[in-house]
Structure formats: C-alpha cells, structure tokens
C-alpha cells in the first residue's frame, strides 16, 4: 500500500458571537490557509454559527504535555508519528 500525500490538517476556531472567545470546533483538511478558511465556512458555519473564524495548521500548534509531572514521557507525548499506527504497513506483512 502506498500512502498518498494528503492535504494537511487544520484546527478550526469559531467566534459564536461578538464578545465571546473563539472556541475550538473541530478540524478539517485543506491544501493551504485560504482553502482552510473557505472550508471552515462551509463545514463549521453552515447554520450561521459564527461571526469570525480562525484556521491554524495543526502541526504549528505548540502544546503542553498532558503529564508534566512526569518529564520522562513528555517528549513523546506530542508526536503522533512515534506511534506505531502512524505507519501504514502492508497487510500481508505478518506479526506487525
């Protein structure tokens, strides 16, 4: 199986109405920033839910570890690619 390149993941934040914070509503894929905003409009504000949208590339977000009290595991925490399921293995390879 070949893994085809995909549009990067964006996290979407919507301000529901004036005076409120932007709130994380979900994510989507887009080839670039502009497309991310347009997709966010279509996907997350179809029912007039928002007055303002932020779109942030998921891989640009700096995040704390869920487990700061235990620095031993922290470096691994934010890297999904260190997890085995991140790698597509051909299904006919046994015992992976």
């Amino acid at each position: 199986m070949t893994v085809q390149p995909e549009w990067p993941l964006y996290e979407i934040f919507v301000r529901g109405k004036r005076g409120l914070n932007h709130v994380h509503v979900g994510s989507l894929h887009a080839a670039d920033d502009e497309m991310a905003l347009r997709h966010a409009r279509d996907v997350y504000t179809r029912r007039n839910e928002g007055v303002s949208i932020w779109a942030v590339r998921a891989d640009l977000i700096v995040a704390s570890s869920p487990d700061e009290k235990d620095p031993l595991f922290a470096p691994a925490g934010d890297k999904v690619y260190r997890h085995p399921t991140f790698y597509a293995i051909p299904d006919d390879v046994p015992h992976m």
Partner: protein
Amino acid sequence: MTATANADREADFERTIEHHDRIEPRDWMPEKYRATVIRQVAQHAHSEIIGMQPEGNWITRAPSLRRKAILLAKVQDEAGHGLYLYSACETLGVSRGELTDKLISGKQKYSSIFNYPTLSYADVGTIGWLVDGAAICNQVPLCRTSYGPYGRAMIRVCKEESFHQRQGYELLMTMMSGTDEQRAMVQESVDRFWWPALMMFGPPDADSPNTAQSMAWGIKRDTNDDLRQKFVDMSVPQAEALGVTLPDPELAWNEERGHHDFGQPDWDEFAAVVSGSGPCNAQRIAHRKRAHDEGAWVREAALAFAAKGTDL
C-alpha cells in the same frame, strides 16, 4: 521503559476511566484501547459517508422544492458528520486517506443499514424516522464516551441528527395526510426498514464479543439489547401517532417488564449483510471508490499548487 513505569501509566489510565474522566489524544493509553477507539470511530465515520448514498439517490427527484432543500442539507450534514469523525480518528495518528483505503478495501465496516436500497421517496422519511432514530439512541450516550475528541464530535453530530429525525417523521406525517397511494408508500417503506433498523444496534449481547471490554473502557455506554429495547419502546407510540403498523406480530406491551416484547430480526440476514452479501454492498463501495479515485487528480492539484506557495 521499566515495568514499574508501564504499570504506573496503566494505573493512571484505569483511574481516569474509573472517574469517568476523558482520555485525550496525547494521554498514554493501552494499545488495545487505541485500536478499539479507532475501529469504532472509523466505522462510525464510514457509516456517515456511505449513508449519503441511499438518501442522495433521491435528491434530484425530490417532489417539492422545500423537500429538495431539506434533503440536500441533510445529506450535506452527513458529509459533515463523517468529516468530524474522521478528524476525531486522526487525533490517534491515523489519516483520513488510510481510513478511506480501509473502507474501500473492505477492511473496515460501516453500518449494515446502508446496504439496503431506497426504493421510494417515502424511504427518505423512514430513514429519518427509524434509521436516524436508532442512530440517536446509539449516539446520545456516546457524547459521554471516554475518548474526548469522539465525545465532542458526537455532541455536534447529535444536535444535527435530531433535526434529521424530525424532518423524516414530519415528511411521513405529511404523506400520511395525503393520498391513499402515499399512505401505501409509507407503510411499504416502514415494512422494509423496521427490521434492518432493529439490526442497527448490533447482535444480541450474548453474541457481541467486543461489548464487555468497550463498556469497561467507557467507549460504549449501553449494551446492544438495552438500546434496542429503548428504541422499540420509543418507536411504538410514534408509529401509532403516524398511523402505520410495525411488521412484527410479536410486538406487545409487557406490563410486568414495563417494556414492549418484540420479535428477533433475522440474524442470518444480518450476518450475510455484514459479511458483504447485502443488496447494495458492492454498489456502495464501488460508488465511494469511484468518487475517491476520480477526485485524486483534484486533491493532487491542490497540494501541488499549495507547495508552489503562490499567493493569489
């Protein structure tokens, strides 16, 4: 990593589950938990995407402009639900492309209900009433599922889904107030979808191998049989109000249990549909594969364009 550290992490995880707290993407979790969440969420996402087809089948033939708009918006919502759920899956390090490959190659399943054909416009209403109704029974508890991103996606899905059920029921009510032919269409459609809707809750608990572990982990919150009972109890008065009969001679109120007794769906048929020989299995997957393959050049073009970094 030492055995003690492993045991500590596992204990932390179990404690979080026990307290009904949420597991978040970057928490440590047992490999089996991760695999189970991915399997369940992916199956759910695939169901939304495949579920666009049976109803989408009627968009161009909707008999009024209002119904056309409602149906188009509804099928569009299903694309949205699939998208939210794929995103929840992606927090576990598996990409949408991989999940789509697994759907198309048959390695991951979707709800067997969508392997039944839609043969009249009444099916749009019946799917809203019974299929979305059954889905809501299944899904509302999932808003409290232990995996955070899944639960949050489900909150949005459930809010939109309740509209779907109402539009379906309202369509059937309107049709029942129309002509004799329309009433016959509704009854015929309910006859076809009642049993497959009951199957949506999965096999009886005794034959459901994954239920116990999924419940212990808080991924699943109720057993198949409990949810099925709840759905039957809910649907009976709705059918009465609508003026249709449900095609089950064993259906009767049981005073002692405080629930309806009801017959068992044909579980052999269920097994056959799940294993690929339902009326529309091949058609649904072929449709998805064609759309995905035909879109490849577009997705590649957008990536190539973005890589050039040109601003418009």
